[in-house]
């Protein structure tokens, strides 16, 4: 499963991730990371069974942990299969097959919302 870890400004300089990994012995497979002076955000892949442990380890150090378990919804009725969404998705959720059908692999989705703005046909949405 995918999780989003948010690390606030006041603790962003501390080695929270490394400590949590050391404490739990769980390897975090980091898919995306974004840090600036204000905050840090990490998207990581973990096994479902490890969620509780890693969450506790991170939360006790002041981080916020969110499950990314409601991936992008694709409304096939509205979709015209243009492919506009393909080039903006950071994790390659969208692709075209040989017959120019849109393929959506939403297990890769990190719920960033970028594709929603791109879709001209209002065919993509996230549950909030």
């Amino acid at each position: 499963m995918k999780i989003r870890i948010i690390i606030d400004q006041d603790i962003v300089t501390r080695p929270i991730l490394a400590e949590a990994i050391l404490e739990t012995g769980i390897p975090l497979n980091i898919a995306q990371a974004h840090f600036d002076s204000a905050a840090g955000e990490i998207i990581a892949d973990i096994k479902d069974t490890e969620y509780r442990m890693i969450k506790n380890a991170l939360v006790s150090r002041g981080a916020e942990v969110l499950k990314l378990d409601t991936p992008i919804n694709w409304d096939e009725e509205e979709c015209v299969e243009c492919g506009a969404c393909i080039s903006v998705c950071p994790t390659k959720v969208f692709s075209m097959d040989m017959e120019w059908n849109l393929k959506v692999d939403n297990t890769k989705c990190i719920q960033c919302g970028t594709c929603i703005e791109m879709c001209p046909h209002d065919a993509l949405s996230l549950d909030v």
Partner: protein
Amino acid sequence: MVNKSISEINDRIKDGSVSVVTAEEMVGIVAELGAEGAAKEVDIVTTGTFGAMCSSGVFLNFGHSEPPIKMQKIWLNDVEAYTGVAAVDAYIGATQVSETLGMEYGGAHVIEDLIRGNAIDVHAISPGTDCYPRKILDTTIDINDLNQAIMLNPRNAYQKYNAATNSTSQKLYTYMGSLMPNFGNVTYSGAGVLSPLSNDPEYRTIGTGTRIFLGGAQGYIVGQGTQHSSKSGFGTLMVQGDLKEMDTEFIRASTFTGYGVSLYVGMGIPIPVLDEKVALATAVSDADIITKVIDYGIPSRDRPVVRQVTYEELRSGSIDIKGREVVTSSLSSFKRSRQIAGLLKDWIAHGEFFLSQPAEKLPSDTVSRPMKQTRGTPMVKDIMSKNVITIHKNASVYEAAKKVMDASFNHLPVVTENNTLVGIVTAWDISKAVAQNTFDLVENIMTKKVITAMDSEQVTIAARRLEQHRVSAMPVVDEQNHVIGIITSDDISMLFARRN
């Protein structure tokens, strides 16, 4: 030499012996049989395209109300239509946006709702005349209540279109979709191998009166489209068709975030293979159609060309830009373009669609000129104030406060010894520092990411940046990042107030 006439081909449609293929299939047929063999073998090549075509709309006739009204303004589901054409005629343009919902709903959505048979609220006003006494009208109609709903699109079916990318560090929202920063993606439009005009680039068979597939119905080419620029390979078509017979499979409303509303139009044009020359033209493939990748990061009519590219490359999923592989996205649907070419082929093969002889050819030597502008457009240097008060980065907050007081100016660009810009402090930053008792150096309280303008920039461009970043002043810098002036939102509003 092959030499067929349209009426001969129509006879074959009638007796069922016509040979019709799609433009995609034709590529292989010409490769195999040669142009002459293909011209003998194939009577008609069908094309198709399905993409955003902003320059679209529908003429509506409502019939007369009791008492009658001469509509002066009209809104359909809160979207204004143009009614400066007779009492109860109106033209709903695809890109007009709703007065209540903004870009979420527009003319294109009204058009889609009409095709779907949905109810539309009509509101019209008029000054009232002796012959048309009514002043206000409110009613609800659907497409069946209209006498006519005739789609008339001034500019459709661009032969090909420039692809788009973005060199800046900011995401751009355009009619070419979201363009990600630092050449993050490339978007393009057009059906390439299936593109109607690319399959007859000399307009040897396509012209005024050509019967076509439009939005799922049979329509016609009216003539050249607006901005038809045949000389440079960017021809366009004006087309018309009966909205009442159209299908939402092939007419769809769309919204481009941050840009606005557009209409996706499905169009297919049959190309009669009259001779070898036509056969050869219809053998065009994605690899033969070349377009340009344009940098939309530069806000000018003459945007720089990043590179040339073929539709084959664009369609491959990524192209090389400055040594990096950049992912491409189509905005038009190739699958649906293919569906249209296939449907048109079926109609013809089953004797449901006949070709028409064009009454007039499309002009082949036009160029589209830029606008004539009679008023000079002001530059930043024309309105910036040159006596800008700056402050050194090592000055104290106290000094900054004093400068702001003396100059009664809200913004102080922060500079180094040689006047290079490194930050900006506002009266607000200073009061905040004072309130928090941080009598620090200016350097430590300034905003480091400064939004700037160049003196040679157009004021409109600078004004937009000001607005986007929600700041009220920008230092003006030269190429070396030296501060040479400052421009404020007051300067800009004063300029525009003068011009109105």
